[in-house]
């Protein structure tokens, strides 16, 4: 038996699915298909690891949903559960779902099928009069990524109609990469970021103030100003056109990621964006990991531990490696492993802590030799070594829905590793 996925959708469901693919295509050129008992998750991460998107279709969204993972019995009583590790190029899948409106009108059924022992995903569209269109897309075997982010502990929560976001987006020119969101308990303001050393002579500064009564929900715990990349907002706006549900925004202090989510019972979309960390928050915050970087977002994903680590070493999993367990003792049938996404800075550990270059996770003190022009906080964390498991009593889980997990989601675990000053923190 192999890990497999089979699902069937109607025309209108395909429209939502296609919109999700389009939205995620704004973030990344690659997409993971990740089935689990929670449903089918489409996940992606951008190349600088500063934005993550995940759209989870619950099993009841589909006309038919079937999936399975491969359970391998091994000698040392540790069953390995191998989930589907399926990564598709956006160039392959996006054209298939390009004209979602015409798909909605014309198709009767859409079937998606794949197995881990085949090397392709089969997408079939069934039209009227017996016409069938089949696409075979080769996939790359790759462990999907996840973000750990608990929306419920965020100090600030807003719920807006997509219209408001659309209005905001037209205000800012495409040459402006970043915007700053400044909120007080009564006010909301979106403005051009003045962190960038922009060409002063030719850059327009724009500001939009919106009264708190335009929000469906407006809860601000403390006055906050956060800065994030503006382009990625367009992705979630694309998706919101398909669902008509309001967009919820969760955020905290500068440096901690910002989450935008849409939840309409059948589909849940989450987009997590890194935010620019303050100079001042660098030393004090134990909960965010600030990365120094030169003019570009740093690589935020770390490679996570493999199995059977001895000592307190951080191990790296290479992308093409054979599937590994994260926790020998727990059955993780869902993806959950954080994977190294090809960061050039991360080296394979041989019992030592890998060297950290300026592009990788660093400690909160100065990383020697790096130019700290901008700092973006780390979004992706994961518990790391197996011998530290006792501190880590919850499995990796997919985003959100803290309300239905029984684990204690508020653990903060600290790990220290030999031979390095690096401190790795997790936010759960």
């Amino acid at each position: 038996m192999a890990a497999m996925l089979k699902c069937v959708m109607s025309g209108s469901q395909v429209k939502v699915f296609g919109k999700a693919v389009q939205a995620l295509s704004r973030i990344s050129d690659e997409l993971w298909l990740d089935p689990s008992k929670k449903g089918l998750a489409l996940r992606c991460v951008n190349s600088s690891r500063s934005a993550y998107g995940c759209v989870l279709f619950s099993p009841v969204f589909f006309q038919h949903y079937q999936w399975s993972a491969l359970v391998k019995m091994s000698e040392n009583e540790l069953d390995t559960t191998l989930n589907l590790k399926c990564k598709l190029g956006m160039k392959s899948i996006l054209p298939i779902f390009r004209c979602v409106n015409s798909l909605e009108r014309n198709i009767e059924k859409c079937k998606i099928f794949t197995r881990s022992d085949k090397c392709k995903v089969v997408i079939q569209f069934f039209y009227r009069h017996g016409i069938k269109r089949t696409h075979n897309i080769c996939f790359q075997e790759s462990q999907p990524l996840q973000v750990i982010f608990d929306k419920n502990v965020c100090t600030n929560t807003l719920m807006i109609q997509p219209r408001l976001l659309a209005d905001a987006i037209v205000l800012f020119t495409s040459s402006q990469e970043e915007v700053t969101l400044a909120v007080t308990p009564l006010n909301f303001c979106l403005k051009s970021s003045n962190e960038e050393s922009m060409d002063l002579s030719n850059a327009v500064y724009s500001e939009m103030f919106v009264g708190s009564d335009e929000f469906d929900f407006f809860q601000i715990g403390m006055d906050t100003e956060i800065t994030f990349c503006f382009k990625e907002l367009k992705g979630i706006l694309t998706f919101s056109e398909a669902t008509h549900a309001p967009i919820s925004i969760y955020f905290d202090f500068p440096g901690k990621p910002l989450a935008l989510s849409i939840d309409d019972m059948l589909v849940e979309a989450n987009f997590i964006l890194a935010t620019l960390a303050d100079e001042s928050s660098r030393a004090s915050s134990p909960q965010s990991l600030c990365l120094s970087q030169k003019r570009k977002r740093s690589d935020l994903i770390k490679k996570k531990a493999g199995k059977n680590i001895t000592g307190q070493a951080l191990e790296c999993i290479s992308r093409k490696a054979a599937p590994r367990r994260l926790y020998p003792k727990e059955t993780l049938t869902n993806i959950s492993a954080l994977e190294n996404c090809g960061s050039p800075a991360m080296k394979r550990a041989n019992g030592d802590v890998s060297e950290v270059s300026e592009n990788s996770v660093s400690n909160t003190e100065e990383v020697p030799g790096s130019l700290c022009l901008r700092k973006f906080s780390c979004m992706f964390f994961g518990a790391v070594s197996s011998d530290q498991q006792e501190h880590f009593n919850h499995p990796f889980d997919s985003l959100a829905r803290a309300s239905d997990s029984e684990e204690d989601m508020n653990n903060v675990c600290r790990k220290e590793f030999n031979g390095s000053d690096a401190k790795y923190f997790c936010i759960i």
Partner: protein
Amino acid sequence: MKFRAKITGKGRLELFIHVSGTVARLAKVCVLRVRPDSLCFGPAGFRGLREAGLRCEAGLWCEVRRGAFQQFRMEGASEDLDEIHLELTAEHLSRAARSAAGASSLKLQLTHRRCPCLTVAVALASPLGRARSVVHDLPVQVLPRRAWRDCPPPSLRAADASIHLPRWKTLRSIVERMANVGDHVLVEANLRGRMTLSMETEVVSIKSYFKNLGNPPESAGVPPHRDPESMVQVRIDNRKLLQFLEGQQINPTMALCNIWDNSLLQLVLVQEDVSLQYFIPAL
């Protein structure tokens, strides 16, 4: 130097949005001349029209008279320097103005942030009490007196022929199709309401005839001996004409064309307090 103006009312706001949109389509950088009773947009670096020979580059001029504004206050640098010349990127203003679609008011103000700016502040106040405001600071360069250029209407001698333009869409589609064939078009008109557009290449010759267009009342400067039936002509670059026909966004109540024989074509559009003039020199 001070400048503060406010536009309210849906129609006037839309007109301003269209004006700034037109300027942005036809010029990358423009000079905004703030005068005591009007705002005038002109191309940057324009050399001015010289009387002799009327040699100049194609250029758009747009005047927005004080009547378009609910409030208009300006103060030049000194008593005798009662104008302010600002150079700015036209697209910035157009974008900022577009955010006023559906707004209740738009304010322009000369300010200084990190550099001199033209601040565009848009207020949206709906009856539900939902207030939203948008502010844009557009960086501008204040031009010193020595860099000031002529502002139209330049004192040209009266045109040789002046005629109302045919229906805009018709004119535009004809010029568009001609542009596919060649680059030069000959525009002819007389004082009896007839206008001809013609174009010739090695293989094809196209001519469009318009009649009964009507002529504006003759101004005093028209030479009396001119035969009203004779056609006055000018050969111009078709692409420039097309650029104007496609780029302009207002809905004029009056649209006419002035031709100086073999020298210059001028298109004039007027809507309420706004007048647009586009000059295309002869080839």
